[in-house]
């Protein structure tokens, strides 16, 4: 394969040019790129806020920014990262690109709805950026009432409108995935031959559909209370401030599973490919995704153990929270077992996958501390919680995202990224991450509360350690930005299947043609049949092009 043959062959990137062919595309692969650019933008905005936070926390006094500014910083960091990076990242970028390809379809069920999804996402983002530019919001990303509904003097309504709008983007993406996976699988692609990436996205889509509307209404009610002075959460009227917490966490807990399930799907693909064998316990891993999605809806009260719920409610939520941990543990054990007697290579995507398993395990185990009622009293709303969720979201979800981007980069671009730099970046990220967040577990146990602009001097040493780690982590994130862009022009040209993987997406050219496959694939084996050659797994039938 040389330079010229790429240009001569038509594929989804060169089939037409110009800004209009991108902004009005209905090709799921181009829409994935639109999302890739958007979420990268939001990631670095959120990272910018995080940088300022860590710089401020170098010293116990509030000497870098004022208290009000600091409160806006952590709020905007949370809102941007949660709603505009973590939730969309893997589903809207990798999911959009790969779901049709992995099941042998030409596109998603509703391509125009998919494009609308992206525009809605951008519209929501604009509202939120506008709120930030107009002065920001300082309620914390959790918007607890009555502070958010009555007392805050910041742009709460504008921000909740932005999040509300973006929620529709999630709902439509989830709807598209569910319908596509149900109705558009290629001949022979039965449910139990689906890649685990698809199972993960199916489970995630269920959460999108059932959970997102509830936060939509919770935030709508806060917005209505602020604008029209409706008194639903106002304690002065006899309103219940806890009602908001229940409505908010009913979505926001399942939301964290939206953030992690797709990453787990990516990890399954990576572990299988770079061990060159099928995932151990495929059925168990598939069902554990569904179990996490279902159980995840039953545990929201564990955010409210000290909020004033009854002691019995606390016990029920604690028990269920332990149960939801079990399917995740099952996955970790199955992934580890997959390595046994495999053929393990150390390409960058695999480094991210292995790092994910380790860091997710630590994050998940610390979740048990929070599920334990007697311990949560002590560490709730401290840096212990912050460390826990960053281990899962950054050590887990972001690593999964980066691993996936690297793995499928050749498929998406027709280019290989520079392997040496990628491994260096993975290592820098791993080290920087642990140095940033492990000290925070200790800080939390010692009693440092969250969202503190100033803190007692005895906490300084650990804070300095954390900020030092953050500076290393930041370097680690900038590296891929640079070398991935470099590879678009100067990277080695990729073949259809540079990793010799078995997924359907690798049985077509890199980059793929607009309709993904020249001929309709017919599937005769399950996913990850590494002991067979691709020709034995897939045959190609009549021409796919209509």
């Amino acid at each position: 394969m040389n330079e010229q043959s790429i240009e001569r062959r038509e594929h989804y990137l060169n089939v037409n040019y110009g800004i209009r062919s991108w902004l009005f595309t209905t090709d799921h692969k181009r829409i994935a790129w639109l999302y890739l650019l958007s979420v990268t933008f939001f990631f670095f905005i959120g990272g910018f806020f995080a940088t300022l936070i860590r710089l401020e926390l170098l010293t116990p006094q509030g000497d870098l920014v004022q208290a009000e500014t600091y409160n806006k910083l952590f709020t905007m960091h949370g809102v941007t990262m949660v709603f505009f990076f973590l939730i969309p990242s893997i589903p809207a970028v990798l999911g959009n690109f790969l779901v049709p390809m992995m099941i042998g379809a030409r596109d998603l069920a509703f391509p125009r709805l998919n494009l609308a999804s992206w525009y809605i996402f951008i519209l929501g983002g604009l509202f939120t950026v506008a709120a930030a530019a107009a002065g920001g919001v300082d309620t914390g990303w959790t918007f607890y009432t009555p502070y958010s509904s009555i007392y805050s003097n910041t742009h709460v309504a504008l921000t909740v409108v932005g999040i509300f709008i973006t929620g529709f983007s999630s709902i439509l993406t989830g709807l598209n995935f569910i319908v596509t996976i149900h109705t558009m699988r290629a001949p022979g692609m039965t449910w139990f031959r689906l890649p685990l990436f698809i199972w993960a996205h199916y489970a995630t889509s269920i959460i999108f559909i059932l959970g997102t509307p509830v936060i939509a209404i919770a935030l709508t009610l806060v917005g209505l209370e602020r604008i029209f002075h409706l008194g639903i959460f106002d304690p002065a009227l006899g309103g219940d401030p806890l009602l908001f917490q229940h409505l908010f966490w009913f979505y926001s807990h399942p939301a964290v599973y939206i953030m992690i399930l797709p990453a787990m799907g990516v990890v399954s693909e990576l572990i299988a490919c770079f061990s060159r064998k099928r995932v151990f316990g495929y059925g168990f891993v598939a069902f554990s995704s569904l179990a996490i999605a279902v159980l995840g809806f039953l545990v929201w009260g564990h955010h409210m153990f000290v909020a004033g719920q009854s002691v019995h409610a606390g016990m029920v939520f604690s028990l269920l929270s332990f149960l939801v941990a079990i399917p995740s543990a099952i996955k970790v054990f199955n992934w580890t077992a997959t390595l046994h007697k495999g053929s393990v290579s150390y390409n960058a995507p695999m480094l991210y996958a292995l790092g994910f398993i380790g860091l997710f395990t630590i994050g998940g185990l610390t979740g048990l501390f929070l599920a334990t009622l007697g311990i949560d009293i002590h560490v709730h709303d401290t840096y212990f919680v912050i460390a826990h969720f960053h281990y899962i979201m950054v050590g887990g979800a972001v690593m999964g995202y980066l691993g996936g981007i690297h793995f499928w980069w050749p498929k998406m671009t027709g280019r290989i990224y520079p392997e040496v730099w990628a491994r260096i970046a993975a290592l820098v990220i791993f080290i920087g991450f642990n140095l940033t967040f492990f000290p925070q577990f200790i800080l939390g146990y010692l009693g440092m509360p969250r969202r503190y602009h100033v803190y007692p001097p005895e906490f300084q040493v650990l804070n300095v350690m954390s900020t030092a780690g953050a500076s290393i982590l930041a370097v680690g994130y900038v590296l891929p930005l640079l070398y991935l862009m470099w590879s678009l022009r100067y990277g080695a040209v990729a073949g259809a299947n540079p990793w010799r993987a078995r997924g359907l997406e690798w049985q077509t050219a890199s980059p793929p043609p607009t309709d993904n496959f020249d001929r309709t694939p017919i599937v005769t084996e399950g996913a990850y049949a590494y002991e067979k050659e691709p020709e034995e797994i897939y045959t190609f039938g009549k021409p796919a092009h209509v």
Partner: protein
Amino acid sequence: MSDLSIVRAHQFDDIEQQHDASWIGMWVFLGTEVMFFGGMFTGYTLYRNAYPQAFASASNHLDIWLGTINTAVLICSSFTMALAVRSAQLGERKPIINFLLLTILLGAVFLGIKFTEYYFKFEEHLVPGAAFNYEASLARPAEIFFSFYFAMTGMHALHMIIGIGLLTVLIIKARRGRFSAVYHTPVELVGLYWHFVDIVWIFLFPLLYLVGRHL
């Protein structure tokens, strides 16, 4: 069969797949709507349980006649909608348009009555906010009741307005002859949506208008 290929979108293998996908898609969407309204119903239920007297008193200030008329209007509109779907299944053209127009008309009547009720509430100082005025001992939970009243019926009205927009689009398509006995999925799907909005009202009406009423 050549006219069928005009209406099959390129990502689908055949008409059946497209039809299945559209149906599942609409049901999934209605599922999200159930969760959306469900949040408000949950909040309403909790507060009604906490303040039964105030809620009963406030509910009695709603105009039960207008509410009942509106319920009848909406049920009729579901009937005309079902007739429109039936006409589409039979491949007729003019009856589809007429029944859709009737449905829009009934929907407009509903909205007209609703906004008249809103106006009356405004005059009676029952809109939550600075101008809210109510018997002192029940005033605060009553204001919560009216907050839910406006939020829930307002959200419902918004869905009706969107529904009327969808019906208008259907009429335009029907006039252009886009529906036949073989292909009329959009009519069926909008029918589902319209029936759902109707069902939400069937729940809203007794919960809001009929608290503690005796015949």
